[in-house]
């Protein structure tokens, strides 16, 4: 038997994976190794697999992912900073048969948009919120986010985050998990193949929760890196994230089918954590 050449393998009939058609061909503006690109693609793959491209309306935030609408081939709205859940609320209310999601960063969702986040969750809007938490403000140049880790440096806390004057890293995901109308809350990451698979399954579940008529809001946090503002390579940033961020923000399901998962939410005492 003759030896197979690469060209023998790279044939249409042998294709097992390629970028989904729900993604456009535009080159993403994200820094090399940024988790936004991966998360965008997972959302797009879920939309393709569920066959809901014509029924999905996305809402993009202000922050690095503001231009997400350039990358997904679906109808999208660009929100004012923090207001995406209010906008998604309205879209879902006026068109209840559509699949509606917001895609927000930590500044957008957990700082300026806290009220919109909490109240859309409290009303149990039947939407999906994708929350990308990289612990920093990326687009504006590396300022402190509500989720910046204690002691972690950012350009607005150059000596590290002082929890006594700047607050502790905000666990908005655990906060909203406690609201009765919230159905599904999970925290995932996209930095390894195994994590990507889990994150995709979570996103898929969060979208499927919009079609069974049971209602409720689904919330998927993706813990990610910001290697540029963390001043590391992408690979090092992922390693740092595993060693540091995951301690503050452990991965896993927090609430499934309206049931809080045991041990996932505990009281956090001042100072004792640090």
């Amino acid at each position, binding site marked *: 038997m003759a030896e*197979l050449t*690469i060209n023998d393998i790279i044939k249409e009939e*042998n294709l097992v994976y390629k*970028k989904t058609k729900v993604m456009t061909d535009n080159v993403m503006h994200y820094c090399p190794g940024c*988790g936004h690109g991966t998360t965008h*693609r997972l959302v797009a793959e879920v939309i393709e697999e569920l066959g809901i491209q014509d029924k999905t309306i996305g809402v993009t935030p202000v922050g690095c992912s503001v231009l997400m609408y350039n990358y997904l081939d679906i109808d999208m709205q660009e929100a004012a900073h923090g207001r995406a859940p209010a906008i998604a609320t309205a879209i879902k209310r006026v068109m209840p048969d559509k699949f509606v999601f917001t895609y927000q960063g930590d500044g957008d969702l957990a700082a300026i948009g806290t009220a919109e986040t909490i109240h859309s969750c409290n009303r149990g809007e039947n939407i999906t919120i994708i929350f990308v938490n990289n612990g920093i403000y990326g687009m504006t140049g590396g300022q402190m986010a509500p989720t910046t880790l204690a002691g972690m440096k950012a350009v607005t806390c150059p000596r590290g985050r002082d929890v006594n004057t700047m607050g502790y890293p905000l666990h908005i995901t655990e906060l909203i998990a406690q609201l009765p109308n919230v159905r599904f809350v999970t925290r995932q990451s996209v930095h390894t193949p195994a994590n*990507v698979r889990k994150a995709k399954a979570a996103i898929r579940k969060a979208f499927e929760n919009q079609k069974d008529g049971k209602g409720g809001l689904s919330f998927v946090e993706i813990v990610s890196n910001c290697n540029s503002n963390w001043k590391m*390579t*992408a*690979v090092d940033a992922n390693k740092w994230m595993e060693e540091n961020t995951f301690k503050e923000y452990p991965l896993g399901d927090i609430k499934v089918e309206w049931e809080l998962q045991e041990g996932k939410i505990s009281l956090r005492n001042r100072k004792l954590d640090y």
Partner: protein
Amino acid sequence: MAKIRGAVKVDTEKCKGCSVCLGACPMGVLDLAKEVNGKGYNYCYMKDPEKCIGCASCAIVCPDGVISVYKVKVD
């Protein structure tokens, strides 16, 4: 015994050379090229194509979706 042979095709012009795929590959197939693409990035390529099993791990962690994966069974 049937053997799996895989291969990846990298859209080298869109690759940003972040290296996340390198660590994701269980077989150590991938590396960054010495050459750079139009954007100045050392793009990813198959250094050891013989070892590729077409598992797609590289493609699914690729933040920019630039990797396509092919796989055949060889008798």
